[in-house]
């Protein structure tokens, strides 16, 4: 049994919203109900069938969306299992509120990727917008579990108010990575931008360095260079769980900055020794 393939019929000018369609909905195939689902965001009320061909394709259980350049928001929102493959760029809020399964974005992703997610894996092959793994308006916490792996760079406020889970960025993060963080881990292999960890209470930001012009926030305390056993454990777990997506920057001897001391200061910014 094959999976489901959605191919864009035509390039539409308006943004599309898939947040009402879980991959489980899509996996049921071209039902009348699915075809009639409104994905447009203007008064034209475009239906799924107006914009996409839905047919069998790909591996069993997979849902593949070929965006054809369309701006699609909310892909994989509230996903609980299976695999969603997005060929092209994903719009805003890919995997928002995701609970399980795997999303592969074979392109770039917009803002709020994986915001509020609690489980599963999102792999973004390109760059990612603001607030990856961050906070959804009206919610108390950012991501509370799962993993976001970004091959490119991440924009600002990555992991805002995240509580658990892991964000791995091959490139650099923009300003305020880990702002108001409550737990979890952010790894920035290309370094972090200004104000990383501002007002973080707990959690770990492991970065290869600071971006040009960025500094250690004044409310972080230099605790010196340490060989941290926990980093050895995390590196081995990442390798086992993520395979090729595991971070390549996994030192266990680092300089530890404790912060943000403007809060309870139980978080840490770890930089190369």
């Amino acid at each position, binding site marked *: 049994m094959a999976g489901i393939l959605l191919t864009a019929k035509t390039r539409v000018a308006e943004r599309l919203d898939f947040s009402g369609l879980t991959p489980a909905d899509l996996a049921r195939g071209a039902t009348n109900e699915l075809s009639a689902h409104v994905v447009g965001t203007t008064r034209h009320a475009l239906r799924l069938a107006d914009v996409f061909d839905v047919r069998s394709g790909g591996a069993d259980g997979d849902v593949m969306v070929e965006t054809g350049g369309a701006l699609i928001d909310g892909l994989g929102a509230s996903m609980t299992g299976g695999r969603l493959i997005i060929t092209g760029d994903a719009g805003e809020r890919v995997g928002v509120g995701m609970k399980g399964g795997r999303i592969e974005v074979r392109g770039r992703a917009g803002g709020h990727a994986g915001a509020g997610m609690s489980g599963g894996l999102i792999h973004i092959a390109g760059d990612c917008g603001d607030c990856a793994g961050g906070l959804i308006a009206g919610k108390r916490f950012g991501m509370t579990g799962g993993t976001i792996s970004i091959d490119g760079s991440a924009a600002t406020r990555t992991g805002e108010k995240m509580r658990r889970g892991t964000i791995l960025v091959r490139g650099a993060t923009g300003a305020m990575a880990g702002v108001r963080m409550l*737990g979890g881990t952010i790894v920035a292999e290309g370094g972090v931008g200004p104000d990383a960890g501002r007002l973080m209470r707990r959690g770990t930001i492991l970065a290869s360095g600071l971006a040009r012009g960025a500094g250690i926030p004044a409310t972080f305390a230099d605790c010196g260079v340490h060989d941290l056993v*926990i980093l050895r454990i995390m590196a081995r777990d990442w390798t086992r769980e993520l395979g090729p997506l595991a971070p390549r920057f996994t030192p266990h001897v680092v300089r530890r900055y404790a912060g943000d001391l403007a809060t309870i200061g139980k978080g840490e910014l770890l930089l190369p020794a």
Partner: protein
Amino acid sequence: MTAQTETALQAAAPIVRNGITIDDTFAEAFGMSATGLVITADSAKWARQCAVTMTGFGTSVIGCGAECGIDRELSPDETPDGRPGFRVLMFGFSPDALTPQVMNRVGQCVLTSPGSACFAGVEAPMRIGLGATLRRFGDGHQTARRSGGKRYWRIPVMDGEFVCEHDTGCTTDAVGGGNLLICGRDRPGVLAATELAVEAIAKVPDVITPFPGGIVRSGSKVGSKYAGMFASSNEAFGPTLKGAVRSELTADIASVLEIVIDGLTAAAVADGMRAGLAAVIAEGGRHGVTRVSAGNYGGKLGPHHYHLKDLI
């Protein structure tokens, strides 16, 4: 002679292997609760030191609270943090009896050991707290970290951080009290043969031999002529008394040593006894071993009976 007496005589016929008589008897063992820990350090030397220290004074539940020992050395590939390590096992009467033993031993012997870290060594639904309790040593500076589906505590100490998994598994399917009694002509020879047996048992996974070097020289019986004594010397196996009391020993036996074996499962204890017995049969003769027996209480106390004839 009836068929029944003939069968009985055949059953009573001694089993002799390599000149060593194997008694037609059994070791009587008991159900126990058990847990395990993986202890790592920056070097194998310090991981071993830590494991030896925390398993010290852990020979018998009668007086030590728990029976403890090193199961095996772990290579860096086998440990959660990629450092050298040892797996230790602890056996007790019940999970409730094990809990304070775990806390005290890890708190006093692992937390205190340079560079150490401590992880779960048994996976089971029933859990005993490790970092769940010890984290308080951090006095508020401790932090929790999830990785690989497990929860760890990072407790600040003077050489960095003590990393300790939140809890470890506890099984109630464990068995304690498997044993072998090795009898021979002189003390050095019996000791040498028993050491070989302990080495063979050490290669069996999921078992420990909790006594000093794996060997007991003070075999006991239940009770005593003195009030308040739970156990006392088993004079039937005391060679210096063999002419004076009702002895289990023949004239040629001048020394008896015992190996007690605890295992996470009944099968592991059987495997351990089998390995020890094989080693004694193979090498015991040249060390003056003449007989192997096993200790029991008539089969009325312990549910696990390991018949030596089934282990050859």
